[in-house]
């Protein structure tokens, strides 16, 4: 069985439980084993602005912990992913830095040698499990669902470090979204930032950027926005809720976590998906689910739709 050390980071357990529970449920369904390492600490991302060394030490300690158990790391958060990848990159690239970091880690009997890989949930789904396998496990697919897929900066860039997908024309996430039957639309601002890194630092600017992106999604015809990062999702959910009231925006572009979307079509139990925990309601998306697994229209689909609603 495929096994990963699950790196939850700080935001998910504290503020986005539905991402953890839906990810665990989806991955269980797909036969991925998850090991929890309690000693994991913050990836260091929030401290990079202030102190590079703290960032690096924090990140490297996580790498060392996973390495000790000889497990590859899977992150659910793209900022954690970017940080751990950056640390992994530096540890491999820069021998003197590695020596310095290991000298500190040694106090706890830890060491980074670069023997493990850091992956994001999406790359595990795409590269390790594969689109075809996921397709084979589909219970229901979405019909007429237009999705604005949001990649997230720290997974895509800097491409030299993160090795996630083609940074200019990525398709990995779009393909994963389309597995569920949804249409992943083209929208000009697809690869732009969600605005979360400035939330709490410069709220006005942060909201400006989020609003621009949301408007772009809406004008491009999206029904929902799909994210696979706690920062992006909270920005599109909790912060969008504030934008709606403070900037007189009429209707929202609700954000759904990818594991919630995939979980719905895999037939994962609703409790783990926690759809009702999103602040901007997304429960309406269930109405777009149809019972058949094939994407092609089938004549008796309407009947099945009826029964699936029961």
């Amino acid at each position, binding site marked *: 069985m495929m096994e990963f050390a699950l790196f939850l980071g700080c935001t998910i357990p504290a503020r986005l439980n539905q991402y953890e529970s839906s990810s665990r449920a989806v991955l269980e369904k797909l036969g991925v084993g998850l090991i929890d390492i309690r000693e994991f600490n913050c990836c260091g991302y929030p401290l*990079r602005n202030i102190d590079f060394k*703290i960032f690096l030490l924090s990140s490297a300690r996580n790498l060392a912990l996973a390495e000790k158990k000889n497990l590859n790391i899977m992150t659910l958060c793209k900022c954690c992913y970017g940080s751990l990848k950056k640390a992994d990159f530096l540890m491999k690239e820069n021998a003197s830095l590695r020596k310095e970091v290991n000298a500190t880690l040694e106090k706890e009997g830890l060491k980074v040698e670069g023997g493990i890989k850091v992956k994001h949930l999406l790359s595990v789904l795409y590269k390790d499990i594969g689109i075809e396998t996921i397709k084979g496990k589909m219970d229901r697919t979405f019909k007429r669902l237009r999705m604005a897929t949001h990649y997230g900066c720290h997974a895509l860039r800097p491409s030299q470090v993160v090795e996630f997908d083609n940074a200019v024309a990525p398709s990995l996430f779009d393909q994963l979204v389309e597995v569920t039957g949804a249409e992943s639309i083209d929208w000009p601002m697809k690869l*732009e930032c969600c605005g979360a890194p400035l939330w709490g630092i410069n709220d006005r600017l942060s909201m400006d950027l989020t609003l621009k992106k949301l408007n772009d999604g809406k004008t491009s015809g999206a029904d929902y926005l799909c994210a696979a990062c706690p920062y992006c999702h909270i920005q599109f959910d909790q912060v969008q809720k504030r934008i709606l009231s403070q900037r007189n925006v009429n209707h929202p572009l609700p954000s759904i976590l990818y594991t919630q979307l995939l979980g719905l079509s895999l037939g994962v139990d609703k409790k783990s998906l926690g759809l009702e925990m999103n602040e901007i309601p997304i429960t309406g998306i269930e109405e777009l689910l149809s019972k058949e697994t094939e994407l092609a229209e089938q004549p008796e689909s309407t009947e099945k739709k009826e029964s699936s609603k029961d």
Partner: protein
Amino acid sequence: MFLKVSLYISLVIFLVGLVYKVSTWFRYKIGIGAEEISTSTRFFSTLRGILSTVFSFKILTLLKVFVLDVLLQFRILREDFLRWIMHIFIYGGFMLLLLMHALDKTITVAIWKNYYSTVNPFMFLRDLFGAFVIVGVLIAIYRRFILKVPRMFTNAMDIYTILIVAVIMLSGIFLEASKMVAYSDYKRMVDEYSGLSDPEELKSLEAYWVKEFGTVSPNIKGPFDEKILTKGKDLHQSSCAECHARPQWAFTGYGAAKLITPIGLSIDRARLPSVLWYIHILACFVGLAYLPFSKMFHIFASSVSLLANGVIGKEKLAPANRATLQAMELDACTHCGTCSLRCSVIMAFEEISNINIFPSEKIGSIKALACGNALSSKELRHLQEGVYLCSNCYRCTVVCPVGINLQDLWFNVRETLLRKGYPEFLVLSPLSFYRGLMKEETVLKDYEKPLTQAREAIAAQCELMKKKDKVLALTPTNRKLQSGLNLSAQAKTFSACFSCQTCTTVCPVVGNYENPQEALGLLPHQIMHAAGLGLRDLAFGSNMLWDCLTCYQCQEQCPQGVHVTDVLYELKNLAVKQVREKTPEPIERK
């Protein structure tokens, strides 16, 4: 007489202390909103809260928490088995000793009419409970000083706590042991209870006790004749056994008695049993009197914290009750270090010598702040940095064995400290994401102030930025700045910049403004250029630095391979470092 007087004195001190300490829960002001609420409002609000909880279905939750968390301490068990064993042994043993041994004349006698401290099972149980405590204390010492549990700090109060328990227990055991060997105690019992007067009989009994029970006699010494021993045994059975079990049953005392047998006579002559009795009693009374002021107060406060937080859960509290809860929680903390062990950002301590980064140590500083001690500016800044250096992951709150809502405490203290006006540069990091989400909990003017203040403090260091119209002299290149930009091993690439402005063109932040220079100061390509020229002030003083999303668009698209985002990261690090170094009494970095 001595017993009574000292008991009452210590009891009075204990009770006054208890009232005093509980009153601080209503008087100490922690965090935003607490200042405006009077003590009486808080008291009555708490009273109302307690009453409405007790007379509702929540009473069931309270009962559950009381059994599982207060009595059985499942929250400790969940975190650390050894610690749970340690604590259950100390607390269980001590409580049982208190009820069955210290209060035997009131409690034990009332339950078991035939209670005598010298008969079984009471004699055995007393030693068994004592042994529990001793084992617990030994584990405590082992954990702290030999196993050295990571990130557990030992302060004076922890040592006092271990010491007072150890003194009470050891004096008790050695008191028992010394009475076992002491001839005068033996003599007293024979005189009082045996009714024997025949010297032959007395001698046989004495021989039997010396042989079997470890009494050290000045008169006779073994080996004894079999006949005498048989006779002594018969006499023991008829005169003593009914009221005095074999001392071996009191196994800890008996073991200790074996140790001190060689000096048994001197012990008796020096009247050590009564000296030990005084030590034992006094230690108990000192422990009692000092309890409200010591870590031992957690017996009450931690139980209250578990019960209160058990029913509160994620419910939002009225400000008056929140203030009271948080003051109480400071007393509930046992300084066990579980929060520090699980803290997410603890690697920061490897770079910053600030003990307040550890949650378990923050509590101490917050206590000092809450009780109104005048903290120096350095102490305040230390604490401020400590409470801000937090990824708000809630882990401390989840793991706290006494259920303290630490996360909320940090948030509250953080906001209070930020109001004091010392610039905190950590606000300019994504650590502030949580603060942004909690915005509605703060006053808007207090929310914005720390953000502008931190930016202004950094910009104030940059002379060139202040004089917008000044014509720049061709300043010699600041090589120190350039060579300083090598932390991430990639940032040094800025020298390849040929000012094509791609970075600025693709920057979503720049694109957000009609007049970006007015809002942001230098734009990305200009900052790269300034760094290339060694113009530190220009590079540090721009808003662009702190408004950078770190989305890496610039870096990804730079045709020259300049690591623009990484350079910006590094400039931010340097700017903070520089302004910190210039602060009087800076917090030490490693």
